[in-house]
């Protein structure tokens, strides 16, 4: 038995990955409020993407990938909704087929033409776009899922990749519906 007056931790349930989308007033400190809520209450952030989406109404859209038990995810949503600048909160399971998730990455490959071409071919499945090309290098833009980019960049390491820059995931529902 414990000597503590606090209860012992109970077994935690299964962790699921969720994508939480938050519409907020784009005002000073709003990102700190959202991120501070996650760190202060011990929630995870796997990735984060934020930008203003409506400059007239000053609305930013924050997309957060997080993991947690169903109870924790429910708490995250309720706590987010309490923040004054938050308008609405949407939550999608990563496994949800009705939702599109995408991340973008910029990949720099250094090497001769052959090497660069090989790298480009490796990216073929992920909508590669060449943004910059010199005799010795190339910058390729790809869009894909997080795990796919993980895998790709791992394999490109031996193919002359010297640098990678990635965004967090963004999400949108399929079809004509929007989240209200």
């Amino acid at each position, binding site marked *: *038995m414990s000597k*503590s007056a606090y*209860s012992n931790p109970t077994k935690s349930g299964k962790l699921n990955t969720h994508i939480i989308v938050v519409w907020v007033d784009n005002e000073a400190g709003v990102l700190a409020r959202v991120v501070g809520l996650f760190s202060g209450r011990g929630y995870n952030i796997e990735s984060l993407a934020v930008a203003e989406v409506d400059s007239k109404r000053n609305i930013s859209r924050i997309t957060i990938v997080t993991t947690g038990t169903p109870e924790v995810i429910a708490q995250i949503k309720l706590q987010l909704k309490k923040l004054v600048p938050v308008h609405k909160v949407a939550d999608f399971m990563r496994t949800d087929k009705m939702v599109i998730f995408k991340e973008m990455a910029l990949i720099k490959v250094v090497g001769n033409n052959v090497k660069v071409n090989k790298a480009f071919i490796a990216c073929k499945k992920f909508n590669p776009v060449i943004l910059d090309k010199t005799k010795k290098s190339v910058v390729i833009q790809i869009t894909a899922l997080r795990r796919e980019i993980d895998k790709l960049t791992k394999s490109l390491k031996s193919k002359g990749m010297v640098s990678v820059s990635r965004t967090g995931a963004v999400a949108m529902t399929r079809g004509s519906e929007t989240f209200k």
Partner: protein
Amino acid sequence: MPKLYSGAEIVFKCLEDQKVSHLFGYPGGAVLPIYDELKNHPSIKHILVRHEQGAGHAAEGYARSTGKPGVVLVTSGPGATNVVTALTDAYMDSVPIVCISGQVPTHLIGTDAFQECDTTGITRPCTKHNWLVKKIEDLPKIMHDAFTVAISGRPGPVLVDIPKDIQFAKTVYKNFSNKVSKQNGKNHKSFSINEINKLIDLMSKSKKPVFYTGGGVVNSGPEASNLLRELVSMTGFPITSTLQGLGCFPGDDNQFLGMLGMHGTYEANNAMHDCDLMINIGARFDDRITGKIDEFSPKSKKVHIDIDPSSINKNIKVDLPIIGDVGEVMQSIIKTTKKNKPSFLKSNKQNIAKWWSQIDKWRAKKSLNFINSEKKIMPQHAVQRLYELTKKFDTYVTTEVGQHQMWAAQHYKFNKPNRWMTSGGLGTMGYGVPAAVGVQIAHPKKLVIDIAGEASVLMTMQEMSTAVQYNLPIKIFILNNEYMGMVRQWQELLHEKNYSESYSAALPDFVKLAEAYGCVGIRAKTPDELDEKILEMINVDKPVIFDCVVDQNENCFPMIPSGKPHNQMLLGPQDQKSKKISGEGKKLV
């Protein structure tokens, strides 16, 4: 051309429009323009504290005892950091506070200027919302929004940080106080009649119901307490209350089981454990209430009525959540029951007769009993005598944090809401003296007592000076056992009597200290003189420090020992021998 007002003037115009009558504060460089303006606004009285933490707790005492938001005014840097404890305390206990802080001029922000700190950054996790005013044009709306946010939904503290140049800058003033801002669609009244019907159905089927009420009933306003009384007497159900909820239901009523939780009564905790229907009204399943979560009230259907959606299912999964103002929900329950279930109102008392006879058996244990002494003053006895001698007055009680706080909660019976001010969530030692100052400011003619411990009281003792300055006859009733009593108790019960650093080997002479402050000092050493000295304290129309020298080794029982469910409580000294605590697990503290 409309009239232009300076930022400092706008601050006061907003306070006037919000009908603020008192301001607790401490001046400093970055708020001087606001202090300069103070003289032009006679309807607002400034109370000069001795430390900004004191201003915060005084505002809490003011707010808790009146239901109106407390207003604090502090300077930048240390002024703001000193108030952080009080803001956190108010956040945990849902007390509406509007804190206005000065800030260095906008062009110096970020340069590590003198008395600069990132006030909005520091207070972000301990306020409902905060604002740094960057443009004078924003000030009127922000000030009024601050009040709206502080008092709406689940109340709490907010902070407005105003740079010094903004206090000088001028703009037009617009009164926003009557415009309810939309608050981004935040809704606090979403309960439906369907949920009410489900609850009434559960109530009519229940054989072992219990009401478990909390601070939400106080926050909902005095009418909520009246409705609670009506609901409880109408149903005949037993009721227990959290620390913060004391006073919403009369403490001496037969349906009241006393406080529940770690130091709650045997009957309250057993009723919570064995019930088949738990109706939580404005409480939040705090860990001091639930004990071991896995074994918390295993057989009950749980209903949770709360204005804060995030309180639902946070610690304990409930079967029926009802989100709304508890007063409005209770009104709906009472109305609907009377209309739709008159048969229930006739049969309910019979339905639960067996349950009451079980509760009476638990009650017969008399779990709050203690072994009194003729030589030494027992702390429980002191609180009981204080209660008996003050109950005919409309007394307001504040406390510090520790054993004395629990004894006060157990033995002082409250009959009205807003009479009991204590730091529950954060457990802030030093809360009681400044809170008593705030209460006495709001209720100048009433008897205000801080039931204190000698260790806690020293943390904010400087506020006695405030009490003297404003002729506030607060009574500081110190249960002096020379120990940090609750720490000592845990060390005795859980750490093999290793009393590590819990004894204060040097303490001031509280009687002389009182005299030094310009108050009255009284000391009681024996049970014989206790009553007479308490009466002396009550009859002095000055601030009093009462040094009540009590038994040093007394522990606060009953107690739910660590890692145990509600039905395995430690009772008084005799019971203890049979249930010795042993084992490991220090790491969790």
